């Protein structure tokens, strides 16, 4: 008899007041029928289950959903827009938020463009979709679905700087030779040396989420506006041309330095580089890292929402009238296979119509 069967058979027979063969169970039966369950039940009320549940929600990042809903109420003027988007997802969202489940989401490729590795000597290698291993001067890489594992080169050659280029419509997870993971978003470039020496320095254009392995050597990410230095931690860097640079810290500690200032971030904080210097604010980090779980999160005017969409689906968006650009949309959804699915969703709000022609999306 399995343990489960035995357990439940025993429970039932005690409830039915049947004879028990084992001494300990006989005691349980007597206790159960003796008639004073109060003492036993009273013990339960010595625990604060509400408090425990709040702690649990914090640990499992479950407060996010409530925030989305309250924001919806807050921007009531745009309710018609919001409800259309939010409602279809509320039911699904919890399933779609695997951020703390340690499974790598399968992130589909949304364009035919292939990622490329550019070697120090200028040669360009295209990375095909199938599993393969690349072994050329200075670079050894194993490719598997949307992950690329890089290994360091031998030490008797001159240090070379290579570049990995992720095109629009793609996302890749790169493992560097020190074990650090880098989730690279669409249209992003990472420059890295073929091996790390005393320090670990990489350069980024675009957006990436770093999970830096602690090994005693400092790790730094340089982007167009400054440098982020860490020892071992996880954080997101967004540095697309023409957009505000944002550094969002998830765990650990990082410093962010531009030409004039230097700031240190605590987990949950975000640094924004603006014309007036670096601004630090406390943010809902899920919002800035949802992309690496295969989600699209947005809370912005249509122009900015679509700028992100252009990168994700490798499309170009045109507007028949500029007033559409200012409409505000809030929501979260999975990274659908096609742009059409996403547009269908947005247009549920009946705020605009759209037309897709090849790689162009026309909003009218």
């Amino acid at each position, binding site marked *: 008899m399995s343990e489960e069967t035995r357990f439940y058979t*025993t429970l039932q027979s005690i409830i039915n007041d049947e004879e028990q063969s084992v001494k300990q169970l006989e005691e349980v039966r007597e206790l*159960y029928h*003796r008639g*004073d369950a109060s003492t036993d039940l*009273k013990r*339960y009320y*010595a*625990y604060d289950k509400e408090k425990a549940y709040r702690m649990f929600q914090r640990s499992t990042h479950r407060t996010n959903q409530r925030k989305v809903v309250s924001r919806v109420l807050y921007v009531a003027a745009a309710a018609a827009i919001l409800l259309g988007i939010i409602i279809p997802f509320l039911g699904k969202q919890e*399933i779609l938020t695997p951020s703390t*489940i340690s499974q790598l989401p399968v992130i589909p490729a949304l364009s035919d463009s292939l990622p490329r590795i550019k070697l120090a000597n200028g040669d360009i290698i295209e990375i095909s979709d199938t599993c393969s291993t690349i072994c050329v001067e200075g670079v050894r890489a194993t490719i598997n679905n949307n992950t690329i594992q890089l290994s360091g080169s031998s030490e008797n050659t001159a240090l070379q700087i290579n570049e990995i280029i992720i095109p629009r419509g793609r996302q890749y997870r790169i493992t560097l030779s020190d074990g650090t993971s880098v989730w690279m978003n669409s249209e992003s470039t990472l420059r890295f040396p073929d091996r790390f020496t005393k320090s670990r320095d990489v350069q980024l254009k675009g957006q990436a989420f770093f999970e830096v392995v602690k090994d005693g050597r400092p790790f730094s990410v340089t982007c167009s506006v400054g440098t982020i230095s860490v020892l071992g931690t996880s954080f997101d860097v967004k540095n697309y041309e023409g957009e505000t640079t944002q550094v969002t810290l998830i765990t650990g500690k990082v410093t962010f330095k531009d030409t004039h200032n230097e700031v240190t971030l605590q987990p949950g904080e975000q640094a924004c580089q603006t014309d007036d210097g670096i601004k630090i604010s406390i943010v809902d980090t899920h919002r800035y890292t949802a992309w690496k779980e295969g989600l699209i999160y947005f809370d912005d005017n249509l122009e900015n929402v679509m700028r992100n969409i252009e990168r994700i689906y490798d499309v170009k968006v045109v507007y028949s009238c500029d007033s559409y650009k200012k409409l505000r949309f809030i929501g979260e959804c999975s990274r659908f296979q096609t742009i059409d699915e996403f547009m269908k969703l947005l247009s549920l709000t009946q705020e605009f119509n759209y037309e897709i022609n090849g790689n162009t999306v026309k909003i009218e």
Partner: protein
Amino acid sequence: MEEFIEGINKREEKSWGNLFDFYYAPLCAYAEKFLRSHDIAEDIVQETLIKIWTSSNLFDNKRHLTLYLYKAIYNNSICYLRSNRESAEITSNLEELSETDFAATVKEELFRRLYEEIQKLPEQRRKIILMSIDGKSGKEIAELLQISLNTVKVQKFKAVGTLKRNTKNTPILFLL
């Protein structure tokens, strides 16, 4: 599959809220038996539940979940006692329950079932039952809740009826 279990598997807020309502306190009381510390018991239960939430574990039904929870808490408590806290694994086959611990588990589950049914009662009836468990008389309850003694009696009668029905006519004699 039951809605509750489905929600647990999908990590849905409603089901996990219910899990805290129906299981949290009994599991703490259960862990405290082994650990002899209220606070450590709460820590172990919290950690175990978070681990389960973040794992990819799926449950077939409520029986499966219930026994799994007891076993996980048992293992983690024993683990803690042994290593004085090194790992909080949720492997469910680490230990076979000894006869004594098996009996303790059965006992906890019997009382947990009553507790679960109490948790499910409507607000006022639950309050009345809890106050009765606390040893308060009908008159005292009436004063505390600012309702008539007759209402207390009626509500309590109905509550006991519900509890009896839902725990399959088992003797619940803790009530007056």
